[in-house]
């Protein structure tokens, strides 16, 4: 009897295990089938984006002149991003561009003759390679930038793992920036020898991220950057004036800085026409800055191809421990800056954007039978008006064209 019972239990367990296993396999196969079907539908195309922007700002607290004086600046920027799909898995990417600025404040590095860096052009470029696996992607990028007094080399890499059902993605990226200054002091301080101890700056970061689908209309992500910087973190031509001495000194800041921003994104497809895109960031660093940034964007789809989106962004932060306005520092302090970017500030950014993107594209260009036709898929525009307290206002207008080939 006992033997029979044992056999019956063993048989039941065997059948149950087999049933569960079969069920799991069936679920897995169904899931894989769904995923495969989805992947076949989503054809990969090579694409190219061309972006332009025009930025202008004005304020009255320039760091070059010790926390007072004009901050007028204009900047014209252009950037091109090309992603070439080599096959189902491999993509090569390239991005490059320039920005040409004209700055009234850097013209005051030398208050007697016009400074060489009153206008300058920065050029930058990156090349990347990425591999797309079934649920595991990875890639890397190298690049650099060059301007009159600052050169930078950049290395970055990422890995990401997506769940089988595609509803969760965990990512990890890292970045290293190796920068070198060409030291330029304010004109009146140039006969005092070396005023800074290094001309190098290093920045390293590790950035984990997690994205989660909540339901058919909602998804969110959380990401963080663990950033460590070392080297010359001050700007050698920023002046600081003191309450107890007439002569200025160059800005002096610690040799290291650790930053920890954490961001949350939540997107909601509220109705067939209206979406809600939100973002919140908490920022902490060991220089004493604590910041909150929140933004909301409301894309409204006028039809399937055309959408407009108003947006608003709010930012507030405490001052760095080393900041004081013009002529409020005492000269015996170890570190000092009057750069208002590190001050207690509150800012508002309000604007709108438009995006036109028909499914079949806007226009197709052919360059002979040998090459693939270039299809203009999307035109976009964005305008923003920014105000910051202490007084700084700026306006930016940007345009974008996206092609596939």
């Amino acid at each position, binding site marked *: 009897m006992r033997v029979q019972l044992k056999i019956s239990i063993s048989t039941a367990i065997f059948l149950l295990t087999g049933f569960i296993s079969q069920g799991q396999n069936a679920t897995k196969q169904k899931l894989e089938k769904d995923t495969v*079907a*989805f992947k076949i539908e989503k054809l990969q195309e090579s694409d190219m984006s061309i*972006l332009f922007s025009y930025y202008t*700002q004005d304020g009255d607290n320039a*760091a*070059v002149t010790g926390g007072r004086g004009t901050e007028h600046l204009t900047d014209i920027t252009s950037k091109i*991003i090309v992603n070439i799909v080599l096959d189902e898995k491999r993509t090569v990417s390239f991005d490059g561009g320039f920005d040409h600025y004209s700055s009234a404040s*850097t013209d005051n590095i030398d208050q007697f003759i016009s400074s060489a860096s009153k206008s300058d052009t920065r050029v930058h470029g990156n090349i990347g390679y990425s591999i797309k696996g079934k649920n595991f992607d990875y890639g890397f990028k190298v690049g650099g930038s060059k301007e009159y*007094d*600052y050169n930078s080399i*950049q290395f970055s890499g990422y890995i990401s793992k997506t769940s089988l*059902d595609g*509803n969760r993605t965990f990512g990890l990226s890292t*970045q290293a*920036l190796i*920068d070198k200054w060409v030291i330029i002091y304010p004109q009146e301080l140039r006969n005092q020898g070396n005023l800074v101890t290094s001309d190098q*700056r290093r*920045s390293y970061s590790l*950035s984990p991220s997690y994205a*989660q*689908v*909540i*339901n*058919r209309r909602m*998804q*969110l*992500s*959380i*990401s963080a950057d663990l950033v460590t910087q070392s080297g010359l973190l001050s*700007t050698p031509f*920023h002046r600081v004036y003191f309450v107890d001495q007439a002569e200025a000194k160059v800005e002096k800041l610690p040799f290291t800085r650790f930053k920890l*921003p954490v*961001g*949350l*994104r939540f997107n909601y497809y509220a109705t067939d026409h209206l979406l809600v895109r939100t*973002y919140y960031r908490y*920022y*902490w*660093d060991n*220089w004493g800055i604590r*910041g*909150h940034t929140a933004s909301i964007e409301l894309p409204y789809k006028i039809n399937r191809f055309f*959408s407009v*989106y108003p947006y608003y962004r709010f930012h507030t932060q*405490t001052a*760095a421990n080393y900041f004081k306005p013009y002529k409020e520092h005492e000269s015996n302090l170890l570190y000092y800056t009057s750069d208002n*970017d590190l*001050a207690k*500030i509150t*800012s508002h*950014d309000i604007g709108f*954007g438009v995006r036109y*993107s028909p499914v079949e594209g806007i226009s197709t260009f052919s360059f002979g039978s040998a090459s693939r036709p270039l299809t203009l898929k999307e035109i*976009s*525009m*964005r305008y923003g008006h*920014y105000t910051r307290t202490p007084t700084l206002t*700026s306006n*930016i207008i*940007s345009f974008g064209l996206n092609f596939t080939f």
Partner: protein
Amino acid sequence: MKNSLKIFSALAILMLAFAGSSCASVKPYQKVYLNDKEMDLAARPLEYFCNNFQSYREGASGANGGKVGGGCGCN
């Protein structure tokens, strides 16, 4: 501002708890809304320029998919 970390932590926990407790398994063919370009969980390409300037004009930056340091931004 003293309690900002607590507020942020509470908000993060609340959002993750909300996400964790109410996540539905959404099939690939049910992702019509989620696959819309406007639903990307990233900054728009045109925000690149804005984010770049804001990272210089504000001491706080990052957690937005862009550069995390480097660059002069000294004017």
